[in-house]
């Protein structure tokens, strides 16, 4: 009789313990899933890299071998993309082709006087420029860079480039 009671109690205790075992198993599994999802579920925000690459491509178009490309002084907003071999087309997800995802503005000024050499070139979605100087994860990424250049007649220039990339839906 005594032996029988002991056996029954042991079984009951094992059942309670196994419930905790399962609970802990689920808690640990849920925590691992949460960690993996929270890290890998968030996309890499490569808009800053893209805007920097775009800036470099634009700079290459204006300056080669240390000298300002002579034909660059003939660039305007209409022929800029074609002359610099740039295509602002994107995949048509989230209606991106209607609302353009890029904006580029280039101005060439005299290095000493600051006077405008060519009219400012602007291509793409001009509304994106509003985000420049503002901070926020959901805002388009804006990169402003300037570089110094000379032509073969020793005229000195300052080339200012603004490149903005939106693509918020796939990067944030």
């Amino acid at each position: 009789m005594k032996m029988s009671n002991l056996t029954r109690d042991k079984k009951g205790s094992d059942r309670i313990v196994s419930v905790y075992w399962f609970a802990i198993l689920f808690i640990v599994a849920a925590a691992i899933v949460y960690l993996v999802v929270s890290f890998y579920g968030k996309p890499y925000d490569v808009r800053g890299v893209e805007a920097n690459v775009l800036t470099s491509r634009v700079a290459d178009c204006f300056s080669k071998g240390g000298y300002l490309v002579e034909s660059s002084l003939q660039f305007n907003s209409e022929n800029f993309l074609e002359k610099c071999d740039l295509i602002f087309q994107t995949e048509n997800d989230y209606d991106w082709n209607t609302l353009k995802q890029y904006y580029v503005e280039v101005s060439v000024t005299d290095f000493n006087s600051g006077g405008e050499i060519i009219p400012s070139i602007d291509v793409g979605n001009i509304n994106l420029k509003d985000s420049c100087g503002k901070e926020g994860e959901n805002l388009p990424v804006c990169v402003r860079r300037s570089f110094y250049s000379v032509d073969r007649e020793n005229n000195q220039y300052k080339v200012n480039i603004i490149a903005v990339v939106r693509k918020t839906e796939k990067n944030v």
Partner: protein
Amino acid sequence: MFNRRAQIGETMTWIVATVIIVVVLGMTIFIASASFGNDKKPDIQEVSKTDIIASKSLFSFVLTKDSSGEIIYEQLKEDKNLNNFSGDLAERIFNDFYGEEYNQIWVGSTDEFGFGKENIYLGKKPSITLEGKDSTLHIPGAFESVNIDEKRSTELVLLRRIK
């Protein structure tokens, strides 16, 4: 009576164990999400050792002619350091254009041993690495050089603020 006590004891152990496990997991999740989850913004300027835009400025700088028609490259070859014209120009270009992005900016000539020569315009060449007690701390930044002759060069060193 004894058996029930044993059962309560074991249950209490598991309740406490569960609480500890949940707390440890919660801490792990908090630390992991605070440390790794938010920083998914690769910065090309943080990892790259070159700054294409600033390099363009350096190449144009050495090709600029002074009032006598001599380009800065030739002047650096002869004088082995910046003079008034090249020093002023370097200061205007590199401090004005890149002063906000970079903490330390230096342009100048190096001697035949590769050591940067101090100049009155942009000072001493900063060391690119800081020697620590146990390790070397690398400061993010960019570097570009133009060879003056076989041994000497003109260098541009841009060091970024450590975040």
